[in-house]
């Protein structure tokens, strides 16, 4: 099956003159300056993303940030007020959703209740006028691919939530879509199934090389599955980058706080691009940010703070959470500020709650945000 899909996609690609990235196959997707308002609400405000063929991009953001609207515009269920969606360089804004060749997996269970799992998967092939025998064979192969061959004859209500979403994935992939769209497909599932399905989706996506846009509000999901993660807020893209880049070098305070855990420590922003916090002046990473000199918050990750047991230090250990190789230590600083600091578990053993510690900044550039 894999070979079959690869063959087809490549031949289509050649015919359409796709811009191919070496070693990948699939379709390029460009979201060009998309804007969309619903009444007075600006759901999308000039969103631009370029996706390379075969790439999995996750759109991450709080609810109402516009990520689902973006996905629905790509799918053709919504139209943009301005901007364009380019597939292989061609503007598809005027193409109706049923001619876009996009497989979609929805948040809610979307299987057709009147059809068996097999008929659900075969539906898209039927719409493409593929003969009964051929489509049954291909649909069976797809079900096998998601590990549900034994359930082929069952109706959706006889399947568990995880199984239903796997059938929905098989159904979306059966049409060999140019783009795969995933609209929070895991959010209705319980934690264990979610983890399994997450891995299954990523493995299949990489094997088939289908360009995939994945919308989620779960940062762990986005960071673990995507090649690149786009963090959205108020209809705008705050930053799009590889997961590690996003975590280590967040471009804005919003990204910093939305992705991973972030401490806020009161500081004083100086004119020369430095900030003073915990009795130390350190360079500011986001100097262009809309923050004026004066009181600010310094944003530091739990692993970005130094912690030492000392007599009469500037903090007191309040909590200790064992996370495996590291232990997260909660420290109360003066001014009722609590920070979380990660220490190797062996070193943290000595830091009993109630003991006095000193918390310092190592001197690396930090992010600042307006005082909250």
């Amino acid at each position, binding site marked *: 099956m894999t070979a079959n899909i690869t063959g087809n996609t490549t031949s289509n690609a050649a015919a359409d003159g796709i811009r191919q990235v070496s070693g990948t196959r699939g379709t390029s997707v460009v979201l060009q300056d998309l804007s969309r308002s619903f009444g007075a609400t600006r759901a999308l405000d000039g969103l631009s993303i370029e996706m390379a063929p075969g790439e999995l991009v996750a759109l991450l953001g709080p609810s109402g940030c516009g990520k689902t609207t973006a996905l629905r515009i790509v*799918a053709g269920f919504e139209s943009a007020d301005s901007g364009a969606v380019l597939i292989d360089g061609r503007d598809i804004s005027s193409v109706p*959703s049923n001619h876009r060749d996009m*497989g979609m997996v929805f948040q809610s269970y979307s*299987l057709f209740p009147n059809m068996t799992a097999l008929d659900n998967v075969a*539906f898209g092939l039927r*719409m493409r006028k593929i003969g009964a025998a051929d489509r049954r064979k291909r649909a069976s192969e797809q079900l096998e691919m998601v590990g549900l061959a034994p359930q082929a004859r069952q109706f*959706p209500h006889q*399947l*568990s939530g995880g199984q239903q979403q796997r059938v*929905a994935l098989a159904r979306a992939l059966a049409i060999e879509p140019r783009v795969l769209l995933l609209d929070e497909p895991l959010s209705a599932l319980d934690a264990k199934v979610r983890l399994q399905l997450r891995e299954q989706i990523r493995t299949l996506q990489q094997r088939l090389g289908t360009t995939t846009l994945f919308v989620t509000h779960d940062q762990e999901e986005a960071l673990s599955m995507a090649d690149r993660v786009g963090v959205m807020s108020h209809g705008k893209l705050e930053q799009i980058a590889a997961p590690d880049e996003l975590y280590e070098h967040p471009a804005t305070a919003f990204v910093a706080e939305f992705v991973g855990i972030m401490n806020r420590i009161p500081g004083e922003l100086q004119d020369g691009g430095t900030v003073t916090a915990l009795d130390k002046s350190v360079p500011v990473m986001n100097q262009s940010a809309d923050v004026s000199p004066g009181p600010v918050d310094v944003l530091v990750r739990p692993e970005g703070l130094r912690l030492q047991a000392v007599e009469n230090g500037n903090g007191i250990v309040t909590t200790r959470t064992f996370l495996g190789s590291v232990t997260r230590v909660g420290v109360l600083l003066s001014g009722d500020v609590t920070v979380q600091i990660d220490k190797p578990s062996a070193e943290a053993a000595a830091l009993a709650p109630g003991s006095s510690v000193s918390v310092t900044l190592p001197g690396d550039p930090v992010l600042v945000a307006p005082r909250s």
Partner: protein
Amino acid sequence: MASIIRARRGGPGGRPPGSAPNAWRWVVLIVAGVYFLIPLWSALRFAGIKSFGSVVSEDGFTSSLGLSVRLAVVTTVITIALMLPTTVYVHLRLPKVRRLMEGITILPIVIPPVVLIVGVLQIAPGSLKNTPYLLALVYVILAMPFAYRAIDAGLRALDLKTVVEASNSLGAGWINTLWRVVLPNLRTAMLSAVVLTVALVLGEYTMASLALYQTFPVWIYVNSQTSGQVSVAASLLALFVTWLFLMAITVIGTRQSRKTGGGSVTLFTVARQETRGN
């Protein structure tokens, strides 16, 4: 009738049999049963079994029943043709209008039939006044509340928007989506709408009599003036046939709905699709 109001057995929160609420259930059932069955039994005693044989040969029976059946068919076709696309459209594109629709569709129940038919007879063009199918047009309005609610309940159980979008994304246009995805899942709801419409048309008296057409109920009344026993036998027959019809729908609907995941089917509610845990 019992099967239509049948309580679902088991399920979460179900009480063990024999407990107090269950006993009350039986009391209510028996009281209601007595209330409904005594008149029926009396009517049967009055008419006598023999009258049933002579109903069919009675003057005007065939023509009046024929007219009622024709009206039922025409009314049902128009009702479904109007209400199905409207309700689907409202669900998909104008969800905000749903409350308004509910309000509008309740109007025919609030407005007395006499008012409706007198008004219609005043303003209807002559060509329509001369055909009994004018009644079918008015019956469509009368059937609207029932048809709308039945179809609305079916659509609510379906998650129409997601299913339609899924079908679209798989390459199906509007016709295919309606024909292969929406309609098959509305079978029970439409069956309910059809049954309610047919039952309403077969039993409607006021309008037919004011418009001077001898439909089956009008014939039963007219006939009761001359031959009381036969007319009572005819109404019992009509009741029994309608009841059989309702039973058939409920049984078929439930079987269909079981297959695709619903529970038992009642006339207004199509049981929501159940999903087992993950």
